[in-house]
């Protein structure tokens, strides 16, 4: 009952965020140099007077600003994110077609980075000061400082072009004609490199956070109590330190969801992964602003959902939250 109320409240908050983003999009279009209709039409549509007139009509561009805003928001409310003249398709259709690939990529990267980060961070903290700790912290720092797109490019050269272990680009083998399990395996093969490169950056962040968090919790009074009980160090680390240390990492992971989506844009671009990030890159090259803003809106919606999920996890793990709310 409590949880349901909480979820509804957070959903309400999410809707407000999306509403604010729609407003932001509206003003961004107006902030651009030139006629809003031309911005919305994109480079390809800007020459077509009939299309421009149609846009002016639809968004009431000759009427006062607040009426224009209302028209714009009404369109967003019905999930009408505009029309791509270049692709001759509604923006929403374009995005929905690409969304599953992005969800697969970000989901996999999120999972990999969280699991790997927590395990490595905990390991480093347990062996603090020794060489394995130094190795993990150094690696984390290196991956944290390396540009994502560059790692993606380099791993492409090494693992696919030189070693030939993994496919170079794409979502699946074109013309492979695989079905069922074979297709799934084929996709997984293609997924490994993008998911790992995207995940490694976040692995680095979570590992650092987990290590710091473990060290902090290790100094807590209740850990002293655990030692006084005569528990073994392994039990103390697992049951008392790690469980408490993981909480701030989960919170951070929720906050980082937005960055994960941003990272997906770069990864998809390099690996020609047919997701919304790649779509954004294509729209960028074609100056197709409606698509650009549409992807921005939908990726924000993804972040809102990611945040909601981590918040629910947090609430389930930490008994203190339920009582205070």
């Amino acid at each position: 009952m409590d949880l349901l109320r909480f979820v509804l409240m957070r959903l309400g908050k999410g809707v407000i965020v999306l509403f604010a983003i729609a407003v932001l999009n509206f003003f961004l279009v107006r902030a651009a140099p030139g006629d809003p209709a031309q911005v919305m039409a994109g480079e390809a549509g800007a020459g077509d007077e009939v299309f421009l007139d149609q846009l002016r009509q639809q968004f009431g561009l000759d009427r006062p600003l607040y009426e224009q805003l209302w028209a714009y928001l009404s369109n967003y409310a019905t999930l009408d994110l505009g029309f791509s003249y270049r692709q001759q398709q509604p923006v929403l259709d374009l995005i929905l077609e690409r969304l599953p690939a992005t969800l697969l990529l970000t989901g996999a990267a999120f999972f990999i980075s969280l699991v790997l980060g927590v395990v490595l961070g905990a390991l480093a903290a347990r062996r603090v000061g020794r060489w394995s700790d130094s190795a993990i912290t150094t690696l984390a720092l290196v991956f944290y400082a390396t540009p994502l797109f560059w790692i993606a490019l380099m791993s492409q050269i090494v693992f696919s072009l030189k070693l030939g272990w993994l496919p170079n680009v794409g979502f699946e083998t074109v013309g492979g004609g695989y079905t069922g399990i074979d297709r799934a395996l084929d996709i997984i093969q293609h997924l490994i490199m993008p998911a790992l490169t995207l995940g490694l950056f976040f692995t680095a962040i979570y590992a650092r956070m987990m290590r710091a968090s473990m060290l902090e919790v290790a100094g807590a009074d209740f850990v002293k109590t655990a030692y006084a009980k005569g528990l073994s160090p392994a039990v103390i680390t697992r049951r008392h330190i790690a469980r408490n240390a993981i909480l701030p990492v989960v919170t951070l992971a929720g906050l980082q969801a937005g960055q994960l989506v941003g990272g997906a844009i770069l990864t998809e671009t390099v690996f020609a992964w047919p997701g919304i990030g790649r779509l954004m890159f294509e729209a960028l090259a074609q100056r197709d602003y409606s698509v650009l803003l549409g992807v921005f809106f939908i990726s924000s919606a993804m972040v809102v959902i990611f945040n909601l999920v981590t918040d629910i996890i947090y609430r389930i793990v930490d008994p203190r939250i339920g009582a205070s709310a």
Partner: protein
Amino acid sequence: MNAFTRFASNRGAIVGLGLLLLLVAVVLLAPLLYPQSPWRMVGRPMGAPLAGSFLLGTDTLGRDVAAGIVHGARVSLLIGVVSTVVALLIGVPLGAVAGYFGGLIDDLVMRFTEFFQTIPSFALAIVVVAILQPTLLSIVLAIAIVSWPPVTRLIRGEFLSLRSREYVQAAITVGQSTPRIIFTQILPNTLAPIIVMASLMVATAILLESSLSFLGLGDPNLMTWGYMVGAGRSRIIDAWWISFFPGVAIFLTVLALNLVGEGINDALNPRLRKEDRK
């Protein structure tokens, strides 16, 4: 042991500082090292490193990669520092006001900040730069817009805890004015975390800038590291060096800033450092 000697005894921090000084030297000496424009074609296209007279080879149009890296350093540092300053100028006052006054003001500021934290920051930066057209100004603006929320959160937290600290309460009871309390009692005591955060923010800003220009959203008049990596991408199989060396430059710069930032942090918070060494 004071903060300075603690910093000096941190090997990583010293390495980072050395790298940074080297970078600054490169920026200052750029007009002497490579007086010509980095856009100029000076040699055979796709010349390998060390083959011929080019240390790091040439790119697809016969431009000197080393010259590009040297000139790109200036852009990276400039954008990193300026956008961090702008982000601080937005974030510090907002956080200070929210933390000091609390109540409704705090609520409003924090809702606003949370909103900007929820937005996928890189996507927002792309949209802003793309719509305003890529120029130095729009890039700095976009990076600042996505970087200020953590500053606000940090400063708010500091102000919130310092405000209830007894010496601030004492300043209120002796009748000091609010601006005086903020500037003489609270702000000086938040400097340490601000400095640490700023050095890490410069690093993140450089990463962001390089990502933007990798996607083709750099200022078209400026040679940048991200642009170079992106431009070499199509010929990565036969001329890996075009993309490789600019990436190394980004990596070293970001690494150096992180090492220095962590070094300052450890130097200013010795307690944590001791726990680290346990």
